[in-house]
């Protein structure tokens, strides 16, 4: 839409400024509160100007929530999930777009439908699987009567168990499947001209070779854009890590630790420390977005030829 009238310009600028304010004010409050002392932060009415205690608040938050090791956990989990998502999404989109097998539309739609089933909806069954990842196989063996057969023959009872609770595997694996990613990759792969595939066939490249030599390099910008979104969203995961880790000391993530930073009902209302902690915790995703934003925009809007 190309509309060039002063009234319209004023309107767009007003809307953008408003949007910017809505986004920035919470940040400002976090920064301001994080830099104040306990007295300053408890003042009524609140002062919206930063003070000089940021560093000591950060140190306090860091120590109280044990952010060092938790930061590493979060990094491992978020990177693991991001990596897993990209690998899985690209491979499944590759299969759906470039191979003409009978169930390919069924597969695509089954993946696509899971967009409607976010983790929160399927959290109980997912937890059950995480508690014993081999449970489905056990059920198959049981219903087929193999368990019973083996038991009568050898008096050994087959009990398959693979517990994912309190492990990085458990934190990462259940989050790796991604309909969004598969869909994005599919859309990109469909823009690859047929002639390019045929040229690579004539050059003697196998499908795997084509995937690594042509598709992956061409989808680099898309991959970085996807990685950015995926990293931020998996960094921000709260519910799943909370559910699956009882061993907070070793496997807790920083976002879970936010809870530990919020003042208890009868404790000191030191919101300044809470805010400083929040600041630390949101720093890595902010940095990632800032670093990637060039690719991010390019990958989602256009492709370089």
């Amino acid at each position, binding site marked *: 839409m190309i509309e060039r009238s002063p009234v319209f310009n004023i309107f767009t600028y007003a809307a953008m400024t408003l949007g910017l304010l809505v986004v920035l004010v919470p940040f400002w409050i976090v920064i301001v509160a994080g830099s104040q002392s306990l007295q300053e932060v408890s003042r009524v009415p609140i002062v919206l100007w930063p003070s000089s205690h940021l560093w000591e608040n950060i140190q306090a938050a860091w120590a109280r929530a044990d952010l060092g090791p938790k930061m590493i956990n979060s990094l491992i989990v978020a990177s693991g999930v991001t990596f897993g998502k990209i690998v899985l999404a690209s491979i499944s989109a590759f299969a759906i777009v470039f191979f003409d097998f009978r169930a390919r539309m069924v597969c695509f739609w089954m993946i696509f439908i899971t967009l409607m089933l976010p983790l929160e909806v399927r959290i109980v069954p997912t937890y059950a699987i995480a508690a014993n990842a081999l449970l489905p196989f056990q059920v198959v063996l049981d219903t087929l009567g193999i368990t019973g057969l083996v038991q009568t023959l050898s008096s050994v009872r087959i009990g398959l168990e693979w517990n994912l609770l309190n492990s990085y595997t458990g934190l990462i694996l259940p989050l790796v499947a991604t309909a969004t990613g598969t869909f994005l990759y599919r859309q990109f792969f469909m823009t690859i001209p047929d*002639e390019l595939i*045929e040229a690579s066939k004539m050059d003697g490249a196998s499908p795997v070779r084509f995937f690594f030599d042509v598709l992956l390099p061409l989808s680099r910008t898309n991959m970085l854009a996807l990685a950015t979104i995926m990293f931020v969203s998996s960094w921000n995961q709260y519910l799943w890590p909370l559910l699956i880790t009882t061993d907070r000391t070793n496997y807790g993530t920083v976002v879970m630790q936010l809870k530990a930073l919020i003042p208890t009902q009868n404790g000191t209302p030191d919101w300044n420390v809470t805010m400083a902690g929040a600041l630390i915790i949101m720093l890595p995703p902010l940095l990632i977005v800032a670093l990637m934003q060039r690719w991010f925009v390019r990958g989602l809007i256009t492709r370089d030829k």
Partner: protein
Amino acid sequence: MAAISFSGVKKRYQKNDVIHGVDVEIEAGEFVVILGPSGCGKSTLLRMIAGLEEISEGTIAIDGKVVNELEPRERGCAMVFQNYALYPHMSVRQNIGYALKVAGMPKAEREAKVLKVAKSVSLEPYLDRKPGELSGGQRQRVAMARAMVREPKVFLFDEPFSNLDAKLRVAMRAEVRNLHRSLGVTSVFVTHDQTEAMTLADRLIVMNSGFVEQVGKPSEVYHHPASLFVADFIGSPAMNLVRGFFGEDGYFRHGKGGMVNLPGLAKAHLSREVSIGIRPELVRRVDAGHKDAIAAVVDYTEELGASRLVYARADGSPIIAVDSGTDALGTGMPVHFALSESDIHVFDHSNGRRVDHNGRPVRATDTVSA
């Protein structure tokens, strides 16, 4: 032994047939052009040679070996595509060398080959550029170099120059011709551009809606079209084709009471409905008093410089003649033409095939016969 031989080759998509049985032999070292209107199945035929399209029925053999079940890379063909199909993220050097890399050739040897091929199509200065930084002509040269570097048994081209402007197309045509002369590799070239086909081909395969209409040298195809379709399709302006029938009296009757005295032709074609055809440049303009002159009325003329085209109408049948006269010829003016029987082709209307002057139908693969 033929380099490529088709026997009974058919192509079927689900239920609709697009190639209806092709039997053609292509000799080693030949430059064959497949010519035909859009959608006639040229690309499909080419892609069946390459292995990009399955062969529904029949066999294709390359160097005597049936390739139906072979993967594209095992057939020894290299292909140049219409839209270049270069890998956009690779440099020219990498594009050309990719096939060799896949084949596992050591780097030093590969580089040497790439350089040699790049030199032969004058791409040396551009080796480190990406395809996006090249002009259309340069990109198509990269595509050709990429095909050449593998030293294939067969070159396949699918309308490689249709994205280039007219001048560049002529230049590229000459380049392809020279390459073929120096390498001598069997080549199959698909196009719907007649001039391109005529100038490049050792032999032409003219196709129409999945059938091979005629196979032959360009001059054969031009001077002795094997079917109505070829007669009409090849040549610009198109051949004059007039529908009618021969009578016992030796006259050919057409249009609204038109009569042409062709006693030598009549006998062989008495009992069928036919079209007779003659090239516009073989229609002679004569004086009104000339024996057996055909009287016509001018519709309009087109000046070509050295000559002009006269579009006229004789008893309701349109006729085009190439005329070198300089007198004024306006709409509605009378003109007279004469035809030589030896220049006239007769086509059987029931099947569209040409019938020779002994009354025998001409087959697609027959060579010269008057």
